[in-house]
């Protein structure tokens, strides 16, 4: 019996990008293993951050087609998993689902981005870990805080790769922002912020 059939090269596709890239891109490739042409008629994503676009052409038996997927990276960080529903014009293979997994990382990461001391808690030093991503060359790094009530000490754990930013508030009722400015070779300098609260 004549039929269409759609086989995905992979039902999970991967992408990686930095937040400043704007978009991460991936491609989902399928092969028509049936005996008559098949066309992707619609794609559905779970959020406005993901777009899945097809060229709309019918794919002949034995040929491959693809879905171009883009994911907005601005402001995002971490691992995202986005389901995408694909609809075709074949009633027997009407819908299929693929998953986009995207890892968004900055060249330099701060963890955590908030340090807080509760009321009555001793104002002992706490640490923000500064990590330089693999493949990035750090030329210089600096940490500042406009609030004189906060002491900062930035020291290498592994020079060029991992740093320890020790933060010590000197008084209570502190609401301050720390700015960490890494200079990465070949990239525009982008400052990172962390918050200090002594409640």
């Amino acid at each position: 019996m004549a039929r269409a059939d759609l086989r995905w090269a992979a039902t999970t596709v991967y992408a990686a990008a930095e937040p400043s890239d704007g978009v991460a891109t991936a491609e989902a490739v399928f092969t028509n293993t049936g005996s008559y042409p098949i066309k992707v008629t619609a794609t559905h994503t779970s959020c406005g951050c993901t777009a899945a676009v097809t060229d709309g052409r019918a794919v002949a038996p034995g040929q491959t087609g693809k879905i171009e997927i883009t994911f907005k990276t601005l402001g995002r960080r971490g691992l995202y998993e986005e389901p995408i529903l694909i609809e075709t014009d074949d009633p027997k293979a009407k819908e299929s689902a693929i998953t986009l997994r995207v890892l968004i990382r900055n060249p330099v990461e701060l963890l955590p981005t908030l340090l807080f001391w509760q009321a009555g808690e001793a104002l002992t030093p706490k640490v923000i870990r500064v990590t330089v991503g693999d493949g990035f060359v750090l030329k210089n790094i600096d940490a500042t805080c406009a609030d004189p009530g906060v002491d900062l000490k930035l020291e290498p754990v592994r020079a060029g790769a991992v740093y320890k930013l020790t933060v010590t508030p000197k008084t209570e009722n502190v609401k301050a922002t720390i700015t960490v400015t890494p200079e990465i070779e070949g990239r525009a300098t982008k400052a990172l912020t962390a918050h200090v609260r002594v409640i």
Partner: protein
Amino acid sequence: MSRSSQRIIAAGIGVIFLIAGMMKVLDPAAFAVDILNYRILPWTGAVALALYLPWVEIFCGAALVLHRGYRGALCIAAGLFAMFIGAYGSTRPRGLDVACGCFGHGAHRGYWPLLIGDGLLLAATLWLLKAEFRPLSPVIRAGREERAG
């Protein structure tokens, strides 16, 4: 290698477990989140493991340092290393970027250094286990079991 060298190596592994366990015990909620980030267990599983695993490490570490319950501790240590290598080793192929959680929340060493380091520790543990189960004369074995019990 002499018995005393084996004991030193075992005690070293024991200290690692003691430190790792004690640091995780300080913040089990954060450790549960670290486990969850591996995306292997559901939340309740991550919570159960976050409460239980640090204490297994502490008791296992103490057993290795004090040379009490030695064989059992070696078996558990080997199992823990293997489990961790499997779990952490699977993160990169799955596209995950996890803070290891090995020595408390936020600890982050490089992917390969961590795997290689733990691989060496697993190898050392297995070697110690092999030395323990080496055939002995019945007299010596009986005496050792009595001391270890």
